[in-house]
């Protein structure tokens, strides 16, 4: 689910069509040039001429002029054809939708902050690395960078767009088919450029609404004693300095929001499956998994770690 070859939006499909045409025509041209070059190399074309360094006969020369002239003209025609087709596709892609869901994406070293815009501040939702969208509706993305340049790219849905500090750029697309589409940062952004992925989850509107409503719920203080201990570890061991958990005192946006962490399928920006062992390993030694990541290893006692992970796993 991470490929230009399986477009699932009108935008990506238009570009894929353009490309298949260019590949077909380009392939024919390549074969043609290669065949003619081989023929010219092998054919004893000058058999009418002597092998001395004589001038090519006027007859042959005018034939050469005609052939090269026609080939040059054909090149121009093909290029103009490509140009017109490309401008038509570009124009279609440039039509921005008037309404629709607007999502702000902020690229950071090395994860994606996702914020759903809403006129009602209480309806704004902040999450990370996993973007839920409704199927069949145009979604607009506002792209910003917090530190260095990143690039937002989910090939099944549309081309990429750079996130540039000091600039706001936008991109939009409409997913036709429900599914999970992978994307990855495409602009070199430092040590962990390779491990800065995200997922786009396209769901039918009711399912999306349900997810949105659930994700907007603040967390309740746990009642279980282990979870309560886990929450205390979270608040006092340094985790809360960077992360948010809605409904608690942890409200920092240095690192990805951990509200409803358990509803996401991966951790560390698409690097690891979100399961017990990986969560444990990530907290114990993030530098071994993503060398250079901003997340430090925090020394925890085994019982603290168990409680912390249990608490994080309760954030459904």
């Amino acid at each position, binding site marked *: 689910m*991470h*490929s*230009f070859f399986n477009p699932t939006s009108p935008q990506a499909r*238009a570009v894929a069509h*353009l*490309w298949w045409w*260019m590949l077909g025509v*380009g392939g024919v041209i*390549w074969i043609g*040039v*290669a065949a*003619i*070059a*081989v023929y010219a*190399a092998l*054919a*004893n*074309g*000058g058999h009418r001429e002597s*092998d001395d*360094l004589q001038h*090519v006969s006027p007859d*042959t*020369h005018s034939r*050469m002029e005609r*052939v*090269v002239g026609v*080939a*040059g003209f054909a*090149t*121009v025609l093909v290029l103009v054809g*490509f140009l017109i087709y*490309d401008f038509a*596709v*570009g124009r279609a892609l*440039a039509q921005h939708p008037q309404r629709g869901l607007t999502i702000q994406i902020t690229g950071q070293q090395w994860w994606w902050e996702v914020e759903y815009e809403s006129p009602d501040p209480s309806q704004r939702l902040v999450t990370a690395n996993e973007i839920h969208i409704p199927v069949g509706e145009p979604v607009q993305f506002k792209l910003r960078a917090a*530190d*260095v*340049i990143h*690039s937002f790219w989910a*090939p099944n849905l549309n*081309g*990429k*767009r750079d996130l*540039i*500090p*000091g*600039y706001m750029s936008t991109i939009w697309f409409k997913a036709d088919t429900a599914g999970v589409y*992978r*994307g*990855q*940062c*495409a*602009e*070199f*952004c430092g040590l*962990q*450029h390779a491990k800065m992925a995200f997922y786009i989850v396209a769901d039918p509107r009711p399912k999306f609404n349900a997810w949105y409503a659930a994700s907007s719920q603040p967390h309740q203080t746990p009642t279980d004693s282990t979870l309560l201990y886990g929450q205390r570890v979270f608040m006092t061991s340094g985790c809360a300095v960077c992360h948010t958990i809605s409904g608690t005192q942890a409200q920092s946006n240095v690192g990805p929001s951990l509200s409803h962490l358990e509803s996401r399928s991966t951790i560390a920006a698409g*690097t690891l499956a979100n399961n017990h062992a990986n969560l444990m390993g990530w907290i114990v030694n993030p530098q071994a998994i993503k*060398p250079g990541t901003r997340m430090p290893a925090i020394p925890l006692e085994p019982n603290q770690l168990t409680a912390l992970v249990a608490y994080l796993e309760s954030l459904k």
Partner: protein
Amino acid sequence: MTAHGTSLPAETTLGTVALEQDAAALDEVWRDRPGFWGWLTAVDHKVIGKRYLITTFLMFLAGGIEAALMRTQLARPENTFLGPDKYNQLFTTHGTTMMFLFAVPMMNAMGIYFVPLMVGARSIAFPRLNAFGYWNYVVAVVFLYVSLFANTAPDAGWFAYVPLSGPAYSPGHRVDVWAQVVTFTEIAALVAAVNIIVTTFKMRAPGMSLNRIPLFVWAQLVVSFMIVFAMPSVAVGSTLMLAMDRAVNTHWFNYTEGGDVLLWQHIFWFFGHPEVYIIFLPALGFITPIVETFSRRKVFGYTALVMSNITTAFFAFGLWVHHMFATPIPELGQSLFTAASMLIAIPTAVQIFCWIATMWAGRLRFTTAILFILGFMFTFVNGGITGVMLASVAFDKQAHDTFFVVAHLHYVLLGGAVMPLFGAFYYWFPKITGRMLSETLGKWNFWLFVIGVNVTFFPMHILGLNGMPRRVYTYLAATGWGPLNLLATIGAVTIATSVLVFVINAISSWRSGEPAGEDPWGSSGLEWATSSPAPSYNFLHTPLVTSRHPLWDTTVEQPVVTGLATDHREVLITTAFDARPDARHEHPTGSIWPFYLALCMGVVFIGSIFSPYFVLGGLGLSMLGLFGWGWQGSRATGPEIVATPKSITEGI
């Protein structure tokens, strides 16, 4: 075939004894001094050119080793052979080496060695400046590779995008190394460009009017003008703006203080895109003489080829935004650059058609040199077609910054520049060393290279469209990119084997290859009208040119010009358009000052990383060098210049 290309047969007008005396006198005057001191003070363009060729080839090997290490890391998912820190240093050093320390200086080196020979000149226009350029280049090579082994090699990419390369996100000196390596190579390239421009315009043999200049020289001339316009852009960007942002806290690129992040990209690519053609056009210049020689026909469409060179150079300056299609630049503006990017395919296509027509008219001799040119056609046309695809904004937004682009650029650069370069090595190696390269090893070299390039880079098209971004040190197994990456690594091993075969061939042939004689291929250019390797004074008598193919068209004895002094380094200056004899000029002798001044530049630019006082100190020291450089005596002019037969110069 008529016999020509033996010594310029002036024996009829001058006695053989007088000739030998002249040759001995000229050699005494022109050759560099012996010994270590002589080595440091050498200014002969062939000596400097040969050093340049060897150093740039060593850089090609170094860049290749870096590529092999990267391919090893990427051979399987989540490999731990290299960590991200090492990988980022390696890919940055690979790009910087291949672009700044191999490709451009290699093309300059070919020009420095061959342009004076091809235009029938005694020397290059500014021999000391030429040596100065070379030593600057050596400073860059040493600086970058000492940094690599000291774990301070640049790691922000050969394009050094801000803010990642700025002081906030690249502390330490790694990016400073990059900025100053670029500075030295800019100086070297500008020096070479100015030298080639002046040599071509003012030092051509009498009779070589503009429409008789060999296409190799045309390509070098056009590219030299491109260097003069493109290189200052990155020199200002890296040496001044980026280095100042990093060293003295200016805010050119700091958006929080009113600077602009995209400004860097414009400055960089305004140089960076012409750079591609600065590498590519000289390679096209190699192709024409090779095609002519081995199809034994004069090239079809000389004027079209020259005009293609010039139009390519113009269009090359109007394409830079196609590296920035994913940035928020207005769509209408982008479409202009799409059109320009497609347009530039036309002159290149015309050139390929002309060469194919030339081959068709003749009967091809399949030497290794021409095989590499055929390899160029198959490989480069593939890269050209993907280039046209990438000109489309819509498609580029999918393919940009992915392995598709890695595939495209390596098809274009390996196919379009390195294959013709290998062809050129096989063709001109005899002229440089006096010995032939082995054709048997040459065939191995060729087939391994062509197969290796395609096996390495073709799968990368698919990887890119399957979502693999560039410049990643690893990837997850779940992406499914593993098998094609392994295939690409196998291809890289094949390329490495091919290059190893070439190195063995070059070393063994240089020591004990078959002697070449003056003109082993039956070529048409003036460089084949003198011994192999050429003597220190290039030509005993300056040839008189009456056609585009002097050695093919001259059925009677090659006419020459006499009257240049033999007791000091005198060269003939001719007019820019018609190459009529215009003036005589005394060329400087060997000198230590170019070397000294390059070291001063080292103090200035490398020192500037650590303290501004090094800049002042280095400039102070360089004053002494400039004074020494400029200090020379004067001399009375020699006898009148005589062209034989005189009617030919009058008839130009």
